[in-house]
């Protein structure tokens, strides 16, 4: 593994869907142990950027490196947390069942969860404070608890880079606050977090760094600098959002 501080680096990354360009010539570096919000209007390329890091978005140009490796070889380091609306909350599965999935990639076809795997699962549930809910079906949790179950699955995976797709979308006030606290404590522990966020105010409160996209890279760095009036104007006014400089109404799904 590279001792270099920068672990995720984009070199001239371009992604196209047919004739549509989703990301154009992106160059940036995401330092190890940082917590970064990926910001931008609808269709600015937030989800595409996450998918590219995960290695399941073919690049039309450029290169992404995670440490010294290409994304498809760095899979064990990556833990992905899906959007809330992508989850079927009525699925017959308990909290423990969800968290155990974090260990599935490490199991052979015929092997069962080992004692070590189980300890990891219990540890992840302890860490996120849902151990006492382990046997509950996932619909019968609060929004914040549901989010914590999926964060626990990511922790159980044992990766060190966490990719969160719109983690605040659909959470109530308490849920958002809970999630904010967890992400802040992860920062203290030096976990690397990359989260697509549409709510600029929430991002300001929680993330020290940001990437602002509008197909092109608008800015990247400390969040206060990234969210300067001029940058926000550039990212949200020229593009698809014509209603105002701030995208707080941008609820609709990001282009995938």
């Amino acid at each position: 593994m590279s001792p270099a501080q920068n672990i995720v680096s984009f070199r001239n990354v371009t992604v196209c869907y047919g004739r549509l360009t989703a990301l154009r010539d992106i160059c940036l570096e995401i330092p190890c142990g940082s917590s970064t919000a990926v910001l931008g209007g609808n269709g600015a390329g937030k989800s595409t950027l996450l998918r590219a890091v995960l290695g399941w978005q073919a690049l039309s140009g450029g290169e992404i490196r995670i440490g010294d490796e290409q994304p498809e070889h760095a899979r064990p380091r990556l833990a992905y947390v899906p959007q809330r609306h992508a989850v079927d909350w009525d699925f017959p599965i308990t909290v423990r069942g969800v968290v155990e999935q974090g260990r599935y990639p490490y199991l052979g076809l015929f092997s069962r969860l080992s004692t070590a795997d189980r300890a990891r699962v219990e540890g992840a549930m302890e860490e996120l404070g849902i151990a006492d809910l382990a046997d509950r079906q996932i619909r019968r949790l609060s929004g914040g608890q549901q989010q914590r179950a999926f964060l626990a699955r990511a922790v159980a995976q044992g990766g060190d880079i966490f990719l969160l797709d719109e983690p605040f979308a659909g959470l109530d006030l308490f849920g958002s606050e809970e999630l904010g606290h967890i992400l802040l404590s992860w920062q203290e522990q030096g976990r690397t977090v990359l989260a697509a966020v549409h709510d600029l105010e929430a991002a300001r409160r929680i993330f020290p760094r940001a990437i602002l996209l509008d197909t092109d890279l608008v800015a990247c760095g400390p969040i206060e600098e990234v969210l300067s009036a001029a940058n926000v104007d550039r990212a949200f006014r020229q593009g698809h959002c014509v209603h105002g400089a701030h995208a707080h109404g941008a609820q609709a799904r990001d282009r995938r």
Partner: protein
Amino acid sequence: MSALHDLLVGPFAYEFMRRGLLSALILGVSGGLLGCVLVLRRLALMGDALSHSLLPGVAAAWLLFGTSTAALFFGGLIAGLLTALGSALLSRLTRVKEDAAFGSLFILFFASGVALISALPTRVNLVDFLFGNVLGVSTSDLRLALAVSGLTVGAFVVFYRSILLETFDPVFNRATGGHGGLVHLGFLTLTVLNLVAAMQTMGIVLALGLFLLPAVSAYLWCDRFASMLLTSVSMALAGSFVGILVSFHAGVASGAAIVLCLGAIFLFSALFSPRYGAIRTLRHGGHG
């Protein structure tokens, strides 16, 4: 005592009854498993359409090769896969959306199947194709059912975790290096195989009932994937057994009798399931 014996055991003095029961039980096991995935992935209607679309393949195979079980099987398989792939292609290349493409293609396939069969020499009975005939289960039909069911159970045992992940969270499955596309394709193939195998006993139109109804009933009782699979299989077995008996005593078509018994289990579950049933929802408001 002897009345009970006549009711429960008597019918199985007949060879055709034993075969019919065995065929229904064997397919109940695999159908109960597959149904769970169909229900959880919201593919119930797709499965229904798929089963109808098998007809022309089966009819053409009958025309060309006679009653060969293998030929019927491959005919159905080809027709089913053509419908699935054809609608995927149509929705990609034209403005038509996937559901409309599937709906249009399957009814087209079904109509050509009915046309083919109605043009056949009279010895072939359209009604048997559509609704099944327990009297007609042959040894080779049984062998086919056993092979298909064994394959299905084996796949669920070996790939249990992949199936669970792909059903619950396909995005996560892909993110962690799972082969989601393969699991999906394998699942579709198993579904078609089971539908063809169930055709003799259940008929093309009713076969899906043996898959879907136990699964959707189990869905109303279970909070774990594994227990849903087991409950679904148990319900499929119970429904098949009682259904075959009803079919014998009441002189009802076997497929319909099995589906009606499974339907009774489903309606009971939908009303009285302590957590997810209608009565609970009406009493307490909201489910869960």
